[in-house]
């Protein structure tokens, strides 16, 4: 667990599990879980590459900084998704995304 490829492989596993969840699940909360897993896979890659292959020796904090912003964005996104799910449940009594066809043209 100390070479760059180990971290990248773990990240690939997380991303693959996220893809599986997005394809198979129809419950809106499960979709939120899957999206969070994929965001975490991306963050892990950012930090791993930053620590092993820094852009410049002098300023090798760019990857960590970007991940900090990414985590904050993901938190905002999760809050909005939860609010939308609560509203959708109030309207439909259901959070099955295949049942939500109000916006379908």
């Amino acid at each position, binding site marked *: 667990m*100390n070479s760059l490829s180990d971290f990248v492989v773990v990240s690939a596993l997380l991303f693959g599990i996220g893809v599986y969840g997005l394809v198979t699940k129809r419950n809106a*909360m499960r979709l939120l*879980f899957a999206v969070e897993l994929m965001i975490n896979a991306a963050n892990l890659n950012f930090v791993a590459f930053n620590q092993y292959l*820094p852009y410049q020796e002098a*300023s090798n904090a760019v990857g960590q900084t970007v991940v900090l912003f990414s985590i904050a964005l993901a*938190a905002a996104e999760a809050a909005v998704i939860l609010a939308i799910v609560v509203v959708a*449940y109030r309207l439909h009594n259901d959070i099955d995304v295949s049942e939500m066809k109000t916006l379908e043209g």
Partner: protein
Amino acid sequence: MAVVTVGGAIVSLEAKELVYGAIGLAGSLFGVATLFFLLNAPYVAAFQLAVYIGAVAVLILFTVMLVRQEGWAKEVRPKSTTTVAGVIAAVAVILALTFAVLATDLSRYTIVANTATYVDVGRLISTGYAPVLEVLALVLAASIVGALALSRVDREGDAS
């Protein structure tokens, strides 16, 4: 820790109860935080712990437990063709990425000696990336206000 991360991810999607799924997600996020520690990035790890475990996972857990109703627990069993398609897609993505990584010489690199400390990160955030920080604060405020406006319950009964 890789086992915790990947195992938690699988539990979060496959657990029967949504609450256990949320706990599995928290476990997976905790695993990622420990991987950040292993990567010599303690500031990002602490941020991940505070924001993801402390805020997002708890938010999801409370929403799931407070709004526990029939419609949330209902999970249509996916058609077997969908499951097969999902497994094939996931395995294809994992194999493609893994073989692409193993085909390169990434494993010969070692972690750089002078990895960035929290001082470097803080300096970068407050100088070069300060506009990004400001915009991110606006985005956070807007999303919180939006979430509150969406989930507002009208007690007056008037149309909102």
